[in-house]
């Protein structure tokens, strides 16, 4: 089970992030997770939102460059060693992890992490076999 992540190209200029969030807020889009990877000149803003199609549309209309990528949203028990367990599964199966970030939901006490891996299909399979729960796009709506 995958969810859709939206990536947005942002120049590193004062106020640019606020502009993106303003566009999304005006369109009534709810954000669950946000992560920024940046260099000195630009950044990639990664978002998990309730309606990824609408979010991508409204961003494109506002001249942003946007890409949509399937990612895995893992639910992990809020206890020591659970992230290590998940990472070990990837390692054992030779799946490269590109990046991961934290993902907050108010619905459960469990932790949630977004995983972007090289081979999403394979990771989904091995995580499933190892008993991890992965959130679906529907789960996000709560």
């Amino acid at each position, binding site marked *: 089970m995958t969810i859709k992540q939206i990536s947005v190209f942002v120049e590193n200029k004062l106020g640019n992030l606020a502009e993106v969030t303003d566009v999304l807020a005006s369109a009534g889009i709810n954000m669950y997770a946000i992560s920024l990877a940046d260099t000195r000149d630009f950044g990639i803003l990664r978002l998990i939102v309730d309606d990824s199609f609408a979010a991508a549309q409204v961003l494109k209309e506002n001249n942003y*460059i*946007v890409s949509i990528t399937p990612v895995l949203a893992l639910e992990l028990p809020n206890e020591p060693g659970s992230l290590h367990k998940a990472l070990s599964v990837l390692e054992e199966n030779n799946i490269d992890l590109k990046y991961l970030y934290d993902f907050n939901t108010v619905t459960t006490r469990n932790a949630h992490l977004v995983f972007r891996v090289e081979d999403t299909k394979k990771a989904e399979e091995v995580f499933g076999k190892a008993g991890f729960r992965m959130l679906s796009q529907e789960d996000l709506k709560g």
Partner: protein
Amino acid sequence: MGNYYQPEIECAPREQILALQNERLVKQVRNVYDHVEYYRKRMDEKGVKPEDIRSVEDLHKLPFLTKDDLREAYPYGLLARPLSDCVRIQSTSGTTGRRVVAFYTQHDIDLWDECCARAIMAAGGTKDDVVHVCYGYGLFTGGPGLNGGSHKVGSLTLPMSSGNTERQIQFMTDLGSTILCCTPSYAAYLAESIIERGLRDKIKLKAGIFGAEAWTEEMRHDIEEKLGIKAYDIYGLTEISGPGVSFECEEQTGMHINEDHFIAEVINPETGEVLPEGEKGELVFTSITKEAFPLLRYRTRDICILSRKKCSCGRTHVKMTKPLGRSDDMLIVKGVNVFPSQIETVLLNKGYAANYQIIVTRVKNSDQLEVQVEMTPEMFSDSMGEITGREKELVDALKAMLGIYAKVKLVAPKSIQRSEGKAVRVIDKRDLYGK
């Protein structure tokens, strides 16, 4: 059989054109010597009398004329006719110092229009075409030139002028424009905008005549593909008349210079020595039919190559390459000659858009070159490693082309100013002259 406006001239044997040039040059030299004090003084200084010029072969004896001369003689110093005979002025988009103002009699305008008509017909234009002119109108020669040429051909002319992209596209779709005339950068922008709006099927364009700024073959292919047209180059300069000094034919391998009106020479820009056909150098023009504002041996600063190789279109007039650089737009960065067109070629080869800006600064007495490039959907990725990897490839390709390091800065789409007139490609922040 090709599509010509004046086949008897455009396809005339070389000897016939040369005879015409000899006769017109001799007359023009006598004319300016008798009527323009500025020329008389310059020729006397060089010890050349009008009778020394008996044919094109004697042309090299005449002094050169430069933009500085035009500024010095501003506004009336080079006028060869009484002001009362003039009906129009046009002016250059003066970047520094005084503008250059050119004068035209009605006869001058007619000949200029005919040159543009030749260009439109070489691009396949007929009286049944709808010619969409979105070069600027006004002092800039782009709009008035193609407008006049289109009238001569008898095409339906849309005098759109520049700007207001929405309206351009609306007229284009509603009135079925078939030939687009504008700057190549605006053509690229229009193409993008048309595709964005999903109107590619609603336009009837078959050809474009694009000039007034430097563009590359890659940009040509890009525009041709996006608009489904054939894109023709056109060249000209206000000092000599305007667009239509030379133009491309269907062979698209250089622009035929209208030799019955303009004599072209290529010189070594450093020594002034005339170079043989096929050698690269600065283009120099002598206008032999101009009445109001005739320029003899005017140095264009454009670097190009002339070719007399037989052209399949049937035209016999000499062909020039598109300017390969400008001797004065050329940047010298860290002692290396850098032409914006080289940077553009690399960007297009690497999959980036042709929209870029070059910024040169000097930090601690050392030149820094930065190329700002707009991010495109194709080059974007959610992975930082992929983007920086491509960025590094671009830096390497630029280094291979230019011989020096250029920093690449990726910027947001549409953040670089899109000019609807001439593109500002270079921002030189160095204080080179202690201004």
